[in-house]
């Protein structure tokens, strides 16, 4: 029988090795040695003042552990068989958690204690070197029960001495049987039930000992309630009610009936059964628990990896692939965007530039018109013509300047679309301000204007004065004056002068009109030519920009496609390895489940519940 569970345990150890968990392997090996050891280690735990030490005393029928008012067990007490009664304080020099009794003897310090000082020893006040590691007291007693291989460990009360049950790895090597002591004056508390739950996970054999039944008349109902509490909490622990007082009394008076009444025979029978059953039933149960602990420990990282693998979408190659695809989309969007920007901006620019030029020329024309409203072209022409030329050149230059600036601005705006690629460079700029005049502007020719010559003046004067002279001369002849008299002469002169002035003004108007229309023509010519130049320049700029950015887009596209391809490749290979790893994990899980099942078969009599797994 023993062979089977040993095989199972060796299987477990091998699995630990396969998984590279040397810590678990160490624990399993310790457990194996422990299970092969025929002694049965019984741990006595519980809240303070429940009668743990008294229970130990009653089991061995000797007042070895001090009991009484406010006596608190500080050091764990280990009771084992010895031919002569003896006591020793055992202290581990290092600070490793208390080694199980019987292991690593060589490294501990042993201080013999006189038997009358056991009480002080247990209270932790004697035989213990300060500053050293955890200590315990080992007491040897010549008792048949101990001789059969029973080792009793009386633990200090309270939660602080949690017997390392918190870490399953440490607990693997611990006691075979745990006695949780709770007295009959009250039901099991929540703390105690929690502790029991914890213990049953790591110990195959947990017994609740309900002490002090002699104090309470209704201990049977308390026991029933406690059994119900245990069942409700799903704790597979037996409950044994005992009375240490009765047992000690029975030992003193050698009263077998009283001994039976104390409940101890049942407890001791239970311990003996465990002891004889250790190589078999208990060991098998322990193997199941070991298997469970090991399987849980091994499966946890695997399960974590599986859950991690289920979220493939988050893996690195996939992320890169997605990023590359996003890049491609983005570039496509970017290319549409910059083309639209360029077209729109250029159309705007053209209309703006033309409007600007027109505005400037109209302004110049207005100024010229105003000037010739009063000025005589004969006198002012030269200066006006000069100013006109200068103004037109200035207007053309300003317009040009603006065109260049707008072109640059458009180029920058288009380049902004590429900002996220870090390619914000502008093309080398070919537009210059002055060098681009295709043809020189036409010369402004002096228009042909009529002058008012002396002869014409004479003639006009004569014509006018004749009328006057005649009119006044005839009128005055009626007054008896001669035809030619000073008055008629004066009137003639007056009329002549007026005719000359009128004629002169008319001539001036005509000259001004001529000049204005000449200037108008000139400015129109100028406008046509300059606007054509601007248009050409703008188109050239647009074409230049388009070529530049199209080339840039292509370059980027090539890069991105390349990275997309590599990402895709990486993702594919990753998926393959992941699939392989997944299968491997699943196989390992199956193997672990098999291992656990095998262990359970070994202990077919008492299957332990296993946490459901996915």
């Amino acid at each position, binding site marked *: 029988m023993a062979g089977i569970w040993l095989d199972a345990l060796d299987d477990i150890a091998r699995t630990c090795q396969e998984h590279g968990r040397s810590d678990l392997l160490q624990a399993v090996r310790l457990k194996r040695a422990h299970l092969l050891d025929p002694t049965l280690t019984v741990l006595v735990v519980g809240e*303070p003042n429940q009668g743990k030490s008294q229970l130990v005393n009653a089991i061995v029928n000797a007042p070895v552990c001090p009991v009484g008012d406010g006596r608190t067990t500080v050091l764990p007490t280990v009771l084992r068989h010895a031919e002569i009664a003896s006591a020793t304080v055992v202290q581990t020099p290092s600070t490793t958690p208390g080694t199980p009794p019987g292991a690593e003897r060589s490294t501990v310090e042993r201080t013999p204690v006189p038997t009358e000082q056991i009480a002080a020893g247990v209270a932790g006040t004697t035989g213990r070197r300060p500053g050293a590691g955890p200590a315990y007291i080992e007491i040897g007693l010549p008792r048949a029960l101990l001789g059969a291989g029973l080792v009793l460990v009386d633990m200090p009360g309270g939660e602080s001495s949690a017997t390392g049950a918190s870490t399953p790895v440490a607990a693997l090597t611990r006691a075979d049987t745990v006695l949780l002591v709770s007295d009959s004056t009250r039901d099991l508390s929540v703390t105690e039930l929690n502790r029991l739950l914890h213990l049953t996970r790591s110990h195959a054999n947990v017994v609740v000992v309900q002490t002090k039944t002699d104090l309470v008349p209704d201990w049977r109902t308390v026991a029933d309630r406690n059994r119900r509490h245990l069942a409700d909490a799903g704790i597979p622990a037996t409950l044994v009610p005992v009375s240490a007082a009765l047992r000690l009394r029975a030992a003193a008076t050698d009263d077998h009936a009283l001994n039976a009444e104390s409940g101890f025979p049942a407890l001791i029978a239970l311990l003996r059964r465990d002891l004889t059953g250790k190589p078999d039933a208990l060991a098998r149960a322990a193997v199941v628990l070991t298997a469970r602990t090991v399987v849980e420990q091994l499966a946890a990282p695997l399960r974590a990896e599986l859950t991690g693998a289920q979220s493939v979408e988050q893996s690195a190659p996939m992320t890169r692939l997605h990023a590359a695809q996003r890049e491609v989309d983005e570039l496509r969007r970017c290319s549409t965007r910059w083309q639209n920007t360029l077209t729109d901006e250029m159309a705007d620019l053209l209309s703006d530039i033309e409007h600007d030029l027109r505005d400037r020329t109209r302004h110049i024309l207005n100024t010229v018109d105003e000037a010739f409203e009063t000025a005589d072209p004969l006198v002012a022409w030269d200066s006006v013509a000069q100013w006109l030329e200068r103004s037109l050149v200035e207007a053309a230059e300003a317009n040009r300047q603006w065109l260049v600036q707008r072109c640059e601005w458009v180029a920058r705006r288009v380049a902004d679309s590429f900002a996220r690629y870090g390619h914000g460079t502008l093309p080398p700029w070919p537009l210059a301000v002055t060098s681009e005049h295709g043809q020189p502007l036409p010369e402004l020719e002096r228009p042909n204007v009529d002058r008012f010559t002396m002869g014409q003046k004479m003639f006009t004067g004569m014509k006018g004065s004749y009328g006057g002279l005649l009119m006044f001369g005839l009128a005055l002849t009626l007054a008896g004056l001669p035809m030619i008299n000073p008055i008629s002469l004066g009137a003639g002169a007056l009329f002549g002068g007026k005719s000359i002035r009128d004629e002169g003004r008319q001539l001036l108007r005509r000259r001004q009109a001529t000049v204005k229309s000449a200037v108008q023509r000139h400015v129109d010519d100028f406008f046509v030519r300059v606007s054509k130049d601007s248009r050409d320049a703008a188109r050239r700029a647009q074409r230049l920009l388009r070529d530049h950015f199209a080339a840039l887009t292509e370059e980027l596209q090539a890069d991105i496609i390349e990275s997309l391809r590599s990402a895709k490749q990486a993702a594919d290979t990753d998926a393959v390895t992941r699939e392989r790893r997944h299968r491997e994990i699943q196989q390992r899980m199956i193997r672990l489940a098999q291992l656990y099942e095998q262990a359970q078969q070994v202990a077919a009599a008492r299957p332990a519940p296993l946490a459901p797994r996915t």
Partner: protein
Amino acid sequence: MTGAPRLDAAVRELLHRALHVYRDNPRATDVLRHQSARLDQPLRVAIAGGWRSGKSTMLNALMGEEVAPVDGSAFTWYEDGPQPDATAYSTSHPPQRLAVLRSATGMRVDLAGWRAGELRDIVVRWPARSLRQVTLLDTPAVGADEQAPDPVLDRVLREADALLYLTRDARGADLRVLEAARQGVVGQAAPIHTIMVMSRVDEFGGGRVDALLGARQLARRALRDPQVDALCVTVAPCSGLLGLAGRVLTEAEFAGLAALARVARAELEPYLLSAERFARGEPPGGLDAAARSALLNRLGVVGIRLATTLVRTSCGSRAALAAELVRRSGLGELRESINRLFVDRREVLKARSCLAAVEELLRAEPDAGTADLLGALERLLSGAHEFSESRLLAALRDGRLDFDADLAAEARRLAGGDGEGPAARLGVGDDATLGWLWEAATEARWRWQEHAEDPALRLAQRRGAQIVVRSCDGMLADLAAHSR
């Protein structure tokens, strides 16, 4: 007493200011008015403790009648009243009278028709002299959850002025629960409102006859533990079961015990080994099963062991046995402690609980001016010499300071243990003139100043002497104020 106004006057003043600050807040005003009314009501002493720590038994022992428990999950108030009467307050129903059934040794309340946990409060009116100055409060079990402050204990501390905290061993979880419930500056101040009672001490040491003596030593040892000392004013060992048995022992029960005692010790002993043996076996003495089970219920197996021994050795009558049981149970000392430390100091205790309530309110509902009030409260608390005096009186009662008897008596007198007035404190007649009082106070002050500086005394003794010096200073200041 300390030149400043007396503590209760200062607390009333603080309440007044708080009422002014919260004049627009009806809820807070209600709380404050309630506290103000409580200052004039009897002292409220709650009995709290873990599950099956013997709360109801202890309450019965203190009252000398079997009136508890009524309902395990409700707060039960015991007030003085002309007629036995019980009223139930639930969360869902209007207050309702409950039927009270009188029994030979107390009463029982008829709870028919109420579901468990439905009742919140039960107020029992019971004609008893012991309730004249004190309202007793029986509480549900305090949980064992040590992380959060326990809701039951929280409410107990809010509603009661003083607390008897029942514990089996004055260690571990019980201390942590009590520690977690200390909140606010008032909660952190000297714990003059808690007596820790080691209950069920008859079961100590597996139920030996001398368990009670052992328990007394254990209590002394616990009191030396600074962690315990910081949580309570004293530790009293008391077996509620034996105390109650002593107070309600009937002639019939005594007759039964006497019959048992007449049986030879060796013959009886096997039957007293366990409760079950006594109840089911056929012990000599001719008691029938019902009588035996009644005795078990009344005394427990340990109590029967003790009682038969007592009857056999010294106590020949019911009265003598009852007195001896009460003496041995520690109940007498516990009652004396309650009288000296709670009832005599009720003004201080009520002021303290009122301060705690005001502090809680100030912290829960901050408003303009609450910071000022909190400051005033903390000043009041740090200047409250009454707290130190309470602690000193408790220490003197326990003999913790090891003063010789005369010195201890004088210290108690000066700290107000024999009466509050200056004449009582100074131990002179009530007709003493101001000059006489002044002289006596000055003389006492210098003498105790010397004690306070005496290097031969222990630190605790010197600290005690310092408190006495301050009490004297306070008296002198009062006298000076009077002479003006």
